[in-house]
C-alpha cells in the first residue's frame, strides 16, 4: 500500500499487467481516452452536474440498472432517463465481472443471447470493451456512472473510463468488506489506489472523474460512525492519488433524525479530515441511499419505503439519492418498476425542494454523538497507520476498531452487533473492539435499555433478527409482537 501518489513509472508498469488481464484491455489507449473524455459536454459530466446541484440546493436522483447485452442495456438506460426522469444514470456491473470471472461473464452473455433474457445481474463492461461503452454513454443525455462492488476493479476502471463514464463507484474497503469473502484488505486497498491513481492521471490532464466510496456497506443496521469512518478513509486514499471530486455516501437507517444528522456530519467530517491532510481542493458532495436492507414484498408498501427515503434525502440536503424500485424484494427490477421508483422519488424531491428544514435539538444531539464516535474511531485508526492511510485501515479492521455488521469478509472482525433503540435509531449492543469511551458506551446502553424495558425483554440476538426483518414486515423497530407495543 502506498502512502503517497503512486509514482508515474510504477503506475505505468502496473498498467501493462492490468490491461493484459482480458483481451479487451488492449483497446485502451490512455492519451486517446483523455481526448475522448475531453470531448464530452459539461452537461454529461458527473462533476459538473453535482456542482450545480449543490448550488441549486437540489437533490439529484439516480437508479441502479444493468443488463447483460449492450442494446438492451442502452434501451434500459434511455427509458430510465426519458420515462423515469433520472438526473444521473448508472451502469451496474454483473457479479461475475465483479469477481474478475470474465469467462463466466462470457457464458452469461452467450446464454443471454441464446435465451433472449438477461441471465446476468448487471452489465459485463470488461467483456464488452471500450467501444461498446462509448456507444452507450454517448447515446445518453445525462452523466453515467459505473456502479459495481468489485474488489479488484483496475481493468474495469481502465475500460470504463476510456469508455466515457465520468464517475466510478467503490473503494478498497467498501468494495471488499461487504462484497467479498477472502480478499485481503491490503490487496484491495492497493488495487484501488491504482484506480484512484488512474483517476488522478485523468485529473492531471484536465479531466475530472467523480469518485464515490460505497457508503451503505452491508446495508444492514450499519451505524453511521462505521460507514463515516470508511468513507473518510477512502476519501483520504483517493485524494492522495489525486482525485478531486468525491461523493461520500450513507445508507438510510429509517429514523429521520439520525439520517439527517448522518448526512450532515458525513459532509462536515469528510471535509474536516481532507483539510487536515492538505486536500482542501477536493470537492465533496453526498449521496443518500434509500433503504438498503430487506424490502417489503408488497409493492404499495415498497413505495412507502422508497418515499420515506426520498423525503429524508431532501430534508437531509443530500446531493443525490440512489433510488430503489417496488420490485426490490423480488429481483432485478423491470425497466418499468425501476422508472416507477424514480418517478416516486422525483415527485418528492420536487415537492420538498422548496421547504426549509432546520436543525432541531434532536438533530444536533444526534450529530454530536455521531461526530464523537467517528472521531474516536478515526483518531484511533490514524494512530495505527504510520502515516499510511491504507495501513491504518488494514490495522483498524484487524483489531476491530472498525467493524462492519453482517459483513461476509473474513478480514472483518464481526464482533460488533447493532440494534435499534426505542425510536428506531441504530445503536450498538455489542461493541466488540470499537474504541469508544465509557460515556459513549453508556449512551448506547441507556438507549437500548429504554427499548428493552418497553418490550419487556433483554437486548439479545433475537432483537437484532427482529430488527433485520422489521422493515420488510412493515415496522422500523422489530417489536416482539407486532402492534402490541
Amino acid at each position, binding site marked *: 500500500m502506498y502512502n503517497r501518489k503512486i509514482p508515474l513509472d510504477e503506475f505505468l508498469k502496473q498498467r501493462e499487467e492490468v490491461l493484459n488481464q482480458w483481451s479487451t484491455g488492449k483497446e485502451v489507449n490512455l492519451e486517446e481516452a483523455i481526448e475522448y473524455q475531453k470531448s464530452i459536454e459539461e452537461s454529461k459530466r458527473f462533476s459538473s452536474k453535482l456542482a450545480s446541484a449543490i448550488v441549486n440546493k437540489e437533490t439529484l436522483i439516480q437508479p441502479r440498472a444493468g443488463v447483460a447485452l449492450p442494446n438492451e442495456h442502452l434501451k434500459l438506460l434511455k427509458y430510465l432517463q426519458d420515462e423515469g426522469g433520472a438526473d444521473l444514470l448508472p451502469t451496474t456491473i454483473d*457479479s*461475475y465481472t*465483479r*469477481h474478475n*470471472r470474465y469467462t*463466466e461473464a462470457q*457464458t*452469461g452473455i452467450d*446464454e443471454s443471447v441464446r435465451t433472449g*433474457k*438477461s*441471465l*446476468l*445481474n448487471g452489465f459485463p463492461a470488461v467483456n464488452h470493451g471500450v467501444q461498446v461503452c462509448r456507444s452507450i454513454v454517448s447515446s445518453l443525455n445525462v452523466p453515467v456512472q459505473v456502479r459495481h*462492488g468489485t474488489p479488484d476493479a483496475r481493468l474495469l476502471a481502465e475500460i470504463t473510463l476510456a469508455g466515457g463514464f465520468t464517475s466510478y463507484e467503490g473503494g478498497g474497503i467498501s468494495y471488499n468488506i*461487504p*462484497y*467479498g*469473502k*477472502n480478499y485481503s484488505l491490503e490487496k484491495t486497498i492497493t488495487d484501488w489506489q491504482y484506480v484512484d491513481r488512474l483517476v488522478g492521471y485523468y485529473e492531471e490532464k484536465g479531466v475530472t472523474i467523480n469518485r464515490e466510496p460505497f457508503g451503505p456497506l*452491508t446495508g*444492514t443496521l450499519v451505524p453511521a460512525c462505521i460507514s463515516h469512518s470508511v468513507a473518510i478513509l477512502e476519501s483520504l486514499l483517493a485524494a492522495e492519488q489525486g482525485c478531486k471530486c468525491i461523493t461520500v455516501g450513507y445508507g438510510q437507517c429509517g429514523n429521520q433524525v439520525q439520517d439527517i444528522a448522518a448526512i450532515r456530519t458525513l459532509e462536515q467530517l469528510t471535509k474536516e479530515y481532507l483539510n487536515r491532510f492538505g486536500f482542501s481542493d477536493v470537492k465533496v458532495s453526498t449521496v443518500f441511499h434509500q433503504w438498503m*436492507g*430487506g424490502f417489503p*414484498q408488497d409493492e404499495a408498501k415498497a413505495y412507502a419505503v422508497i418515499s420515506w427515503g426520498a423525503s429524508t434525502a431532501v430534508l437531509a440536503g443530500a446531493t443525490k439519492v440512489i433510488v430503489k424500485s417496488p*420490485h426490490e*424484494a*423480488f*429481483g*432485478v*427490477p*423491470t425497466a418499468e*418498476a425501476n422508472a416507477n421508483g424514480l418517478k416516486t422519488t422525483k415527485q418528492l424531491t420536487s415537492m420538498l425542494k422548496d421547504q426549509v428544514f432546520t436543525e432541531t435539538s434532536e438533530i444536533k444531539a444526534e450529530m454530536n454523538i455521531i461526530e464523537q464516535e467517528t472521531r474516536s474511531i478515526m483518531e484511533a485508526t490514524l494512530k495505527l497507520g504510520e502515516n499510511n492511510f491504507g495501513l491504518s485501515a488494514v490495522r483498524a479492521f484487524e483489531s476491530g476498531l472498525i467493524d462492519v455488521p*453482517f*459483513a*461476509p469478509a473474513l478480514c472483518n472482525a464481526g464482533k460488533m452487533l447493532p440494534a435499534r433503540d426505542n425510536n428506531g435509531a441504530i445503536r450498538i449492543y455489542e461493541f466488540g473492539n470499537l474504541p469508544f469511551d465509557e460515556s459513549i458506551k453508556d449512551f448506547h446502553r441507556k438507549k437500548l435499555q429504554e427499548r428493552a424495558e418497553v418490550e419487556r425483554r433483554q437486548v439479545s*440476538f433475537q432483537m437484532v*433478527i427482529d430488527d*433485520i426483518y422489521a422493515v*420488510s414486515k412493515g415496522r422500523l423497530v422489530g417489536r416482539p409482537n407486532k402492534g402490541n407495543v
Partner: protein
Amino acid sequence: MEKINVVIGVIGADVHAVGNRIIDYAFSQAGFNVINLGVMVSQKEFMDAAIETNAKAIIVSSLYGHGELDCRGMGDMLKEAGLEDVLLYIGGNLVVGKSDFSEVEKLFKSMGFNRVYPPGADINQGIEDLKNDLKEKGIYA
C-alpha cells in the same frame, strides 16, 4: 441422540451474508448441527463438506440472481458422488428479476433440488419441511 448435520451456504459469487447468518441461527436453535460455509461457496465445496460431515441435508441460498447458472449440474454431481440421499434445498432470489415462481420451482427441481423456496420464504417453513422429509426417510424421530 446426536444432532443431525446440515451444510448451509450461499452459492456462486454471491456475497449476501445476512440471510445466511439467520439461517445458521435458526437451524441451530431448531436442534441441528450447522456446518456453515458462508458466502461464495462452490458446488464442490458444498459436496465436500457434506461428505466430510456426513450431512443429511444441503441448504443452498442464492440471492443475487445467478442461481440458475451457478446450480447447473449440482444434482448430477451429488448423484455421481453417491449423495442422492442427501436432501438438497434451495431458497432466495433464485433468478434475475421478479418472475413466476412455479416456473422457477420447476427449473430448479429439474436440476435435482428437492425443495425450492420463493423470495423471502420463512426459514421456519424450511426447517419444518426438513424435519418432515427426514422423518419420512426414517432419520428424524
